[in-house]
């Protein structure tokens, strides 16, 4: 579904990603793990063309993404929930969802209603400003907004950031259900490796801009060396 080939991205002279290659299978959840500064966010931003790589290619199916405009990539069915969720605080819940429906070919009122059905919490807060929502609700809103346009690929940047373990578990379950029900391909960038590995099918571990592991999630979860050196899971 998504193929990243020999990707190198630089901030000025500093390389954030060096020769990164991996594949994401359709309908799977791929966790991209690693410490702060490993290049996880840069990877997602490059897929969405918010950053331009100095080398390498990214393909969505057969379509090359490098060089395309961010908005066109979104219209190809790639929904990107950015770091910090990207909820427009000055908009109401409903306006945020309507914003998500803009690039959708379907009837936007229907699409918005469908999301209210899926996330009843949001339906209750329909007219409330997004600024008044809690962290978990905001993450729900960001997810719902991404789904309004019926994407085929969902890029999630640190959905657990700033959330309590309980809410995180909730969100992860939602992501897992979504992926199964909607046949969504999910790229899940997480620092919280434990909860991500719980729902992921596959895992890519980044360390200072290079891929150090690319394996089924179960293998990564059982590899103590990986967990100790790169994921901080085993003391």
């Amino acid at each position: 579904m998504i193929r990243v080939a020999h990707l190198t991205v630089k901030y000025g002279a500093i390389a954030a990603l060096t020769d990164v290659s991996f594949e994401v299978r359709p309908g799977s959840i791929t966790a991209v793990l690693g410490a702060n500064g490993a290049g996880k966010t840069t990877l997602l931003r490059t897929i969405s063309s918010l950053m331009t790589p100095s080398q390498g290619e990214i393909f969505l199916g057969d379509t090359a993404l490098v060089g395309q405009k961010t908005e066109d990539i979104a219209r190809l069915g790639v929904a990107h929930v950015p770091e910090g969720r990207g909820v427009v605080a000055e908009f109401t819940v409903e306006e945020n969802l309507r914003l998500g429906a803009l690039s959708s070919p379907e009837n936007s009122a229907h699409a918005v209603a469908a999301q209210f059905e899926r996330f009843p919490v949001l339906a209750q807060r329909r007219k409330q400003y997004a600024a008044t929502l809690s962290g978990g609700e905001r993450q729900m809103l960001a997810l719902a907004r991404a789904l309004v346009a019926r994407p085929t690929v969902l890029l999630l940047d640190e959905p657990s950031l700033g959330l309590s373990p309980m809410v995180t578990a909730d969100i992860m379950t939602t992501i897992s259900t979504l992926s199964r029900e909607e046949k969504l391909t999910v790229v899940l960038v997480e620092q919280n490796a434990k909860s991500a590995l719980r729902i992921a099918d596959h895992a890519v571990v980044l360390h200072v801009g290079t891929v150090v592991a690319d394996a089924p999630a179960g293998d990564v979860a059982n590899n103590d060396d990986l967990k100790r050196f790169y994921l901080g899971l085993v003391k």
Partner: protein
Amino acid sequence: MGGFLASRFMSDLFNGVANGIIFSLIALSLVVVWQSTNVLNFAQGAMATFATYIGMAQVEHGINIWLCMVISVVVGFIFGGLTERVLIRPLYGKPDINPIVVMVGFLGFLQFLAAAIWGNIPRILPSPFSQVFYTSKGHTIFLSPFVVFQILTAVTVMMIVALVFRFTTLGLKLRAAALAPEVARLLGVRVDRLLTFGWMISSAVGSFTAILVAMQNGSALSPSVMGSVFIFGFIAAAVGGLDSPIGAVVGGLLIGLVEQFTLDYWQANMAPVMALVVLIVVLMIRPRGLFTKNTQRRV
């Protein structure tokens, strides 16, 4: 009743509102552009004047005055888009000073170019409505059909802008592009086009304002006709808060009333001084204007 309406206070009120609404329109078009592109368009008045010259020059060719006004506004609309594409686009992400300097340069360029093409001699424009004040039982009320037209159309323009921004999908996109451009792009909104469109709307509103200003009683079209109006408009926008369309409208009315009462009860030359005093006092208390939510300083 006629006596009251003709009183000095009421006539100042009418005049203040009539002028203030002009400042509101200027402030509004500054705010539209500021919100979406973080550029304060110093050339706004000059752009509007230029568009007005192009449209109103057609009056001399015997074209209907209303059609000329439409031409001016359409020219302003296109002009705004061109300006954004050619001058402003290369400046996104640059330090604050770069767009300021470029827009001041553009202001000078347009003003001198207008003087070079059409000369410095003011041209009196025909007015579509009578400029003669109404009278009631022998008392003069300081309202003329033209002033009523001015106030009504200005309010209509404001209402249209407000409705578009608040209730349409286009407005939703425009606001999203202004508030969170990156998120909007991730959701498939074509932000680049919207920024251009924002400039087009702003410039069209500006052109319409310039027509009203040039048609006013005692005024005429000259290359610098919008000079002081722009300053008052900017003060209005800054008083209301550059991020707030409502602030722009309120700020404009406030400055219009301050100007009118100062020039009637004190003297005309004190009007800009008092406007500046209002600006200073407001900004000392709220550095981002009356209607802006205080945002934290970026570190």
